């Protein structure tokens, strides 16, 4: 059975590009773009790896990450956090809230593939 990556990202064209490269690599990919309901989506279909954008409509990625780390079912979920380049404070927050990996935009496709593979074990 293919492993599942959930993309929580509001940029449609990033979703489309990542969906393409991840599917080609053998992953089952789903996506969600609203921060407010992202946690609900995860509880109905838990992913093997979560790619989470820091800046989302209605609720920040950091806030979502904090809730995931406070919840038993998702405490250990591998989370790759995406933020904008140069935002030092974002990196600190990602580490503080327990992101498994951290990547700044713009990133290379190969980088993201390697990181997702590593997180899935």
């Amino acid at each position, binding site marked *: 059975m293919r492993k599942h990556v959930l993309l929580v990202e509001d940029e449609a064209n990033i979703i489309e590009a990542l969906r393409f490269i991840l599917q080609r690599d053998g992953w089952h990919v789903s996506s969600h773009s609203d921060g407010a309901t992202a946690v609900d989506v995860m509880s109905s279909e838990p992913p093997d790896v979560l790619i989470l954008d820091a800046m989302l409509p209605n609720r920040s990625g950091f806030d979502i990450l904090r809730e995931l780390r406070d919840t038993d079912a998702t405490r250990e979920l591998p989370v790759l956090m995406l933020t*904008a380049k140069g935002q030092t404070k974002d990196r600190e927050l990602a580490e503080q809230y327990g992101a498994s990996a951290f990547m700044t935009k713009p990133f290379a496709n190969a980088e993201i593939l390697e990181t997702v593979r590593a997180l899935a074990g």
Partner: protein
Amino acid sequence: MLNPNHTGSRVRQRRTALGRKQADLARAIGISASYLNLIEHNRRGIGGGLLNAIARELQVEPGELVDGVSADLARELRNAADGHAEAMLEIDRLEEFVGQFPGWSALLAQMNQREKGLEHTIETLSDRLTHDPFLSASLHDVLSTVTAIRSTASILAETPDLNQDWLSRFHRNLNDDGERLARGAEALVRYLDEGGEARKTTGATPADEFDAFLKANQFHFAVLEDSDDVAEILQAAPDLVTSAGHSLAETYLQRYVQDRSMLPLDAFAQAARTEALDPAKLALQFGVDLLTVFRRLATIPKERLGFDVGLVLCDGSGTLTYRKSLTGFSLPRFGAACPLWPLYQALARPGTALHQVVEIAERTPQRFITYAACQTSLPAGFSGPEVRSTAMMFFPVEALPSGYPMPGGQIALAGPSCRICPRVGCVARREPSVLNDAF
């Protein structure tokens, strides 16, 4: 009996600091030298007329002799000493220091205040760069678009066997993202150039505060149309934080009142409509100069004229001192505006009135009717320097009713400022445009 407040000690410190002899001071205030000596050694209390006389002779407030150093000065000096170990060791000699060196004390306190003010400015500017919500959102948007472009372009370059459906989708996405990136970058540059929503940047500079204050009031002050109460408006202005910002606004409002007294709203707005905003006719009708008409037209609410009137003023150096921009005609925050504006032609030719249609090169070029004039004055007298004040008012051609009188001559081509002007091949360009060169 000893005077526990050490008023006498302060009298002595102040007297010696001024280099006056005890006998001389005693004579001046009408007491014996031996009695003054008792006072100075805190063996006699003083108050009332005698205290006032001594204070007057020693050129200090009576309260400073009784209470010591003024509370504000003492607080400021303690604040200055805080963190300096050597100064803190001598903190109990603060009154003695102030008594002996009042001028140096005041200077030290003033410099400490100034240092705090500068630190605050640096913090504000730094905070603005790192936490400004518009900048943060815009940068995130630009970087997200760049990410999408980079990922998509990599797929196209690295996947030779891509099927037609994906190929079409990725080409369309690239095109959309390229367009979006150009828009985002342009908005970002324009924001930085104009100072953005100045309201959000309160505290950055006095000029920002002044801009925010004008924008918040839409350049019109209804209260001042039938009152002179400038203070009421200033007190209720949250954007005016610094005294310099306050001062800029106060000067502006006082001139607003003067202009309004010469050009009452109802009569002037009616005449402006009748004369199709011709500033020369309005100046003649109301017996005022052209610049007064320009300034007043820019304060008339849009609904009275049917459209908004923009205005920009500059001094003899070309520095913009007042900016009311309109959609399609951005006015840069600093002085680096387009050299082809009629404003600068008028500045070079005082006494000449210019009337032109100008096309401003922005993403969608727009045409504006402009009026520009430069007046000179000799505020320091006939032998003093000549001071030039130049103004350009403008309004969009597309907002005008049909049949509106248009100026003759060629349409002048100009832009906002070189840095954000997309016009290609401009002979007056002073620096490359980030819009053309980057995108």
